[in-house]
């Protein structure tokens, strides 16, 4: 190879954006540029930034996902950089489809738009996520603890919240007279 030969460096063509098969999901994905569709264990998942949660939920609701089946959080402590992941499971009865929204949430910025205005059934679930993981849902009508006592400190399902134990002293314990 001589120096005269100009090697054209071609920029690798960006792969076309993967889109889901079902028309319903495709319509939602088309509407938002920043949604990424992945297939996880054969189930449809949308990865999205947290600012878009309510917009995507609204679009999904209008596209026929009538019910919010589940809302929960995973804590990838020391495994991933945005530490938390908000997981919303939507259910469409008319299309017989499930859709999962996964939203990375960093630990130093736990504000997420609430989906209660779209799905009132998210009420208890967001309170649970707040209670056990400390995520703050903006626009939730009543973001209080639901399972733990009101005065509890910390968020127990975080990975850095220890299991804790109470030592049980069998020997020399208080004797009933």
């Amino acid at each position: 190879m001589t120096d005269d030969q100009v090697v054209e460096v071609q920029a690798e063509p960006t792969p076309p954006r993967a889109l889901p098969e079902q028309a319903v999901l495709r319509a939602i994905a088309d509407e938002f540029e920043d949604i990424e569709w992945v297939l996880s264990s054969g189930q449809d998942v949308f990865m999205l930034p947290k600012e878009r949660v309510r917009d995507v939920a609204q679009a999904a609701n209008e596209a026929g996902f009538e019910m919010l089946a589940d809302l929960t959080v995973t804590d990838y402590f020391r495994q991933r950089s945005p530490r938390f992941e908000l997981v919303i499971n939507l259910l469409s009865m008319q299309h017989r489809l499930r859709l999962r929204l996964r939203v990375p949430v960093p630990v130093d910025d736990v504000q997420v738009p609430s989906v209660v205005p779209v799905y009132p059934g998210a009420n208890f679930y967001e309170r649970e996520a707040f209670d056990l993981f400390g995520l703050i849902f903006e626009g939730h009508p009543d973001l209080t603890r639901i399972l733990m006592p009101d005065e509890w400190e910390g968020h127990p399902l975080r990975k850095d919240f220890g299991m804790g134990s109470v030592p049980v002293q069998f020997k020399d314990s208080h004797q009933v007279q």
Partner: protein
Amino acid sequence: MTDQKDKRKVDVWLTGTEDPGWLVDSTDEGAQKMAQHETSTRLLDQEGLTITDDRLLHEDVAADDELMIINMGPQHPSTHGVLRLNIELEGEIIRRSKPIIGYLHTGMEKTGEDLTWLQGPTNVTRMDYLAPFHNELVYSLAVEKLLGIDLPPRAEAIRLLMTELNRVSSHLVALATNGMDIGALSMMLYGFRDRERILAFFEKATGLRMNHNYIRPGGVAADLPPGWQEDIEFILEKIPPRMAEYEDLLKANPIWLGRTRDVGVITLEECLAYSVTGPTLRAAGSDWDLRKAFPYSGIENFQFEVPVGERGDVYDRYRVRVEEIWQSLSLVRQIAESMPDGDYKTEDRKIAPPPRARIDESMEALIHHFKIYTEGFQVPEGEAYVAIESPRGELGAYLVSDGGAKPLRMHMRTPSFANLQGLPVMMADSLIADTVATIASLDPVLGDVDR
């Protein structure tokens, strides 16, 4: 019954805003207390700064001092566990209510992160203690989804047999407690008596009446006991005539009808909005059943129908449960008759332990046995959500694996937790005497709610 228009008007007034939103805005503020009525609009009214005579002249309107907040539970015999309700009364009419939960919270999701995949069913079976097999099944299905394994047909048939029998026993308790709360005490005795027959079979097959830890990732723990056909035959012989008897007892009983018809109504639209599933959703007029929509464990090979109600009241929920018992009994018969031969757990020795006899003969079997019970098996990295139809509704398991021997996250979507959100809707503008009937018809299990 006030009609729908009036109801909404009262809600709007209670919310203190002109926005006729969902009840969620008006019921909740603070974990332990209800919202104040002194919203800015109310304060302006009280200070006389706005003229709102027409609202104050409305006959439904009561001043704040005519409203009374009473507390019901957590130690109340009709709340099916440690459910606590704050109820705001205007005279005898419930205006708002708020379920307060968490009294049975034992951190089972946290515990689940500390148990191996094989120990998981021991934990989850204690959530919904009236339908333990369903909890074990949904957990095992989610683990198998992550593992990507298939099961021998006999394992799946045993799982279906057990879960459908469990549906019968759970609905029998629902009928029994529903009867007891309304005053039909004989129904309570009958329901528990018949459930005992099914529990006796469970005890024979699994060793325990409840919390069986029988369905595990990779199959079931043991084969059906010798003579199981006769036991099933006995159950199928005894329960249907009894069920017919209970139909005579309650179906057209005027007292029962008076206590349940048009009581605790929830519409289909409200069910969808508040994530209410199961018999409550079907009583409201939807034929949504996960056994039909997303079949699991080969249930699509059997014939059954999905009973649907019309009005969404307590009576329809009672009817749906009774019909589901009949359908499940028919399913049990079909499954028992077509029970295939073969293995009851997968042949994959990395997941299911070898038979006891093999351990004495084979070094490898001993190693597999040792590895499974000390370290556990590893599940590939990934996450999956699997849901089945439990007697209370959609029971889901969301599992996340980081490739280790324990789950990174184990979350159960329990139906009672979501169904409780529909309770304030059902109870709004109804009589306080109907509260217990409404709670019983929802059939919440507080272990399932609080986990």
